[in-house]
C-alpha cells in the first residue's frame, strides 16, 4: 500500500432541513428563535483512506451523501465531526465554469477562474494557450462568455480546471458534459492524470463508468458507509441492493385493462439464473410470469428496451415467433425471450413489458418494469449504445503482404 492521499477520519455532517424557509430577522425576533428545522445526518462516522495514485469511486442512491462527502473533501462544506486530510494540491470538477462573469471575455475569465482554483498569474500565463486550445475556443477567447453556447462554457471550464495539474482531482458527474467528442477528450485527460500517478475521486451514477475507471469504490447508503473495496465487487453488491433481482415493486406507468397481468419480470443469465448485472455479448434471457384471469386468444407479449432517459432502443413483440408462443393463455404461466448475444454496451437501461392481443387490446403494460445494468463484456467498444459485433478484415493491396 502506498501513501495515503486523502484521509477521511470519522467524518459526520449534520444538515438542517427547514420546515419553513424563513430566514428573516423579523420572524426570528417575533418567535424568539430561528426557523424551525429538523436535523439529519447526511454523513455518519465515515472513515476512508484513499491511497495515492488510485482512482476511487463513490456510489450510492440520491441523498446517500456521496456529493456531500465530495464537497467535504473539497473544503466547500465543513464536517461537523471528524477530520479530512488531503495531501497535495487539489482541484474539484464540481460545476464547470462556476464563477464565470458573463460580461467578461473568455480570457479574462480564465484568469479569474484559474485564481479561484489556486493558480498563480505566471502559471496561467504559461498555460493559457494550452487551455484555449484544448477547449477549442481560439477564435472566441476574447468574446464575452455570455455569448458562448453552453457547450463552449463547460469546455472552457473543464479546460481550466484540468490545467491545474492537481495531485488530487475530485470529479462529480461532470464528465457527462459537452458533445461526444469532447467527452472523449475529457476522459482521455483524466486517464492521463491517472496514469501519471495522480489520485482521482469520482462520484457518479454511471455504474459502468465507475466500474471501468475505478480501482476501488465506496458505497454510501443514507450517510453510512456500506462497503468499501475493489470496484467490481462493491458495484455488484450495490446494484443488487439498489435494483433488486426481481421487480416486484411496480415502477413507471402501468396501463391496460388488467384482465391479464404480467406479475413478475426476471433478467437471467444463460443458465436461467436471475442476475442483476449482465455483460455485453453474453447470452441473456428475460422471463415473464403472467396471470390471465380470462382466457386470452392470440396474446402478444412485448419487450421494450429503453435508455434511462426514456428513449426506446428496441421494441420486440412475440408475434415474430408465433410457433413458440401459445395461441391462447389462461391462468398462470411463463414466457421467455432469449437474446443470444446482448448488443448493449455498459450502462443503465430500463426494460419494459406489455401484454396485449393481436386485435390490439392492451391488458397490461409496464414501461419501466425492470431497470438493469450492463457491465463490460465482449466486445469492448469505444463509445455508443450498442455493438454490432463487428469483425474487421484487411484486404492487402496487390504487391503487399
Amino acid at each position: 500500500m502506498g501513501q495515503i492521499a486523502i484521509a477521511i477520519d470519522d467524518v459526520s455532517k449534520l444538515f438542517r432541513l427547514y420546515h419553513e424557509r424563513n430566514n428573516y430577522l423579523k420572524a426570528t425576533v417575533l418567535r424568539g428563535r430561528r426557523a424551525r428545522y429538523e436535523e439529519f445526518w447526511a454523513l455518519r462516522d465515515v472513515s476512508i483512506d484513499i491511497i495515492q495514485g488510485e482512482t476511487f469511486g463513490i456510489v450510492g442512491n440520491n441523498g446517500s451523501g456521496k456529493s456531500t462527502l465530495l464537497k467535504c473533501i473539497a473544503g466547500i462544506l465543513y464536517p461537523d465531526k471528524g477530520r479530512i486530510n488531503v495531501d497535495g494540491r487539489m482541484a474539484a470538477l464540481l460545476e464547470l465554469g462556476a464563477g464565470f462573469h458573463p460580461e467578461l471575455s473568455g480570457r479574462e475569465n480564465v484568469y479569474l477562474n484559474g485564481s479561484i482554483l489556486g493558480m498563480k498569474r505566471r502559471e496561467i500565463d504559461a498555460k493559457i494557450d494550452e487551455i484555449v486550445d484544448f477547449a477549442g475556443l481560439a477564435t472566441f477567447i476574447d468574446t464575452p462568455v455570455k455569448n458562448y453556447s453552453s457547450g463552449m462554457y463547460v469546455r472552457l471550464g473543464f479546460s481550466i480546471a484540468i490545467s491545474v495539474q492537481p495531485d488530487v482531482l475530485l470529479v462529480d458527474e461532470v464528465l457527462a458534459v459537452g458533445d461526444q467528442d469532447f467527452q472523449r477528450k475529457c476522459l482521455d485527460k483524466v486517464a492521463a492524470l491517472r496514469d501519471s500517478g495522480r489520485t482521482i475521486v469520482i462520484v457518479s451514477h454511471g455504474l459502468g463508468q465507475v466500474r471501468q475507471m475505478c480501482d476501488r469504490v465506496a458505497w454510501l447508503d443514507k450517510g453510512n458507509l456500506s462497503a468499501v473495496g475493489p470496484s467490481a465487487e462493491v458495484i455488484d453488491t450495490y446494484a443488487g441492493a439498489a435494483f433488486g433481482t426481481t421487480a416486484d415493486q411496480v415502477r413507471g406507468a402501468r396501463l391496460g385493462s388488467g384482465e391479464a397481468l404480467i406479475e413478475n419480470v426476471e433478467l437471467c443469465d444463460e443458465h436461467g439464473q436471475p442476475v442483476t448485472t449482465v455483460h455485453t455479448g453474453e447470452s441473456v434471457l428475460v422471463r415473464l410470469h403472467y396471470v390471465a384471469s380470462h382466457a386470452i386468444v392470440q396474446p402478444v407479449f412485448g419487450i421494450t428496451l429503453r435508455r434511462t432517459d426514456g428513449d426506446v432502443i428496441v421494441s420486440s413483440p412475440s408475434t415474430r415467433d408465433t410457433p413458440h408462443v401459445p395461441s391462447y393463455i389462461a391462468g398462470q404461466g411463463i414466457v421467455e425471450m432469449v437474446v443470444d448475444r446482448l448488443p448493449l454496451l455498459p450502462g443503465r437501461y430500463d426494460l419494459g413489458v406489455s401484454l396485449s392481443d393481436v386485435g390490439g387490446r392492451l391488458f397490461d403494460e409496464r414501461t419501466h418494469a425492470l431497470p438493469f445494468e450492463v457491465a463490460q463484456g465482449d466486445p469492448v467498444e469505444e463509445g455508443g449504445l450498442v455493438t454490432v459485433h463487428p469483425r474487421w478484415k484487411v484486404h492487402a493491396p496487390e504487391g503487399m503482404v
Partner: protein
Amino acid sequence: MQVAELVRSRELLANLTLRELRGRYKRSVLGWGWSLLNPLSSMIIYSLVFGFLLKVRFPDGSPSGLKAYGVSLLCGLLAWNFFSLTVGASMGSLIGNASLIKKAAFRREAVVLATVGAQLMTFLIEISLLSIVVLAFYRRMILPWLLLALVLVVLLVAFTTGIALIFSSLNVYFRDLQHLWTLTAQLLFYASPVVYPVKGYVDVKLRGSRMWLRWIYEANPIGAFIQSFRNLLYDFRMPPGGRLAYIVIISFVSLFGGLRVFARLDRRLAEEL
C-alpha cells in the same frame, strides 16, 4: 492563519476586484463617469438644501483659511459614501456569488474584500479629484495632508472591512438584514457630521445636562473618521490625539472581530446559501 491564507490568495483577491470593477461599468455609456456622478450630484443637492436654503455654515478652515461649504462637505461625504456603499454592496456579495461558493473551495472572505477593494478604487479617485480642486481653485498646498489622509484611509478600510465581513455573512442567515441596514444607514448619516459641522451646531445643543448625549454622539466611529478627514483635508491640521487613538483601536477591533465572526459563520455558508 486566516490572515496568512488571505495573503496567499491575494491574486484571487485582485482578480475578483477586477471582475467587480470591469463588470460594473462595462455596458454603460458613461462607464467610469457614473462612479463620480453620484457624489457630485449629492454634493450639489446638499449644498443647495443645507448650504443655500438652511444656511448651514462650516467654520473656516484653520489654519488653511479655506471657506468652501462644498469642500468641507465632500471631506465628510466621500468618507461616508465609501463606508455606506461598501457595507451595502458587501451584503449582497455572498448571495450574489452563491453558485461559486457552493461549487468551489476558496477563501470566501475574498468575495467581501473584493467589494471593499472595488469601492476603495472609487474612493481614492474621488479624494484625488478633491485634492486637485483644492490645489487648482484655492491654491492651497494640500499634498502633505493628503499623505496623512491616506493613513486615515487605511484605517477606514480596516474598520469598514470588519463591518462588511460581519454584515455580509449575517445577511446570508437573515436576509432582511439588508432592509435594516438601509434604515440604520439613514440614521447614521444624520448622526454623523456630514452635511453640518459639530462646532456651532452639535456642541451648542448638546452640553450641560445633555453632555452625556454628546458622548454618545462622539462615540460614533464614522463621525470620528469624518471629523478627522475634515481636520486633515479642510483645516490642514492634525486631529486631536484622543480621537486618533479611538480610531486606531476601533479599526483593529472591527477588522479582527469581523474576521472572527466571518470565520464562524463561514462554516455553514455553502448550505445556507
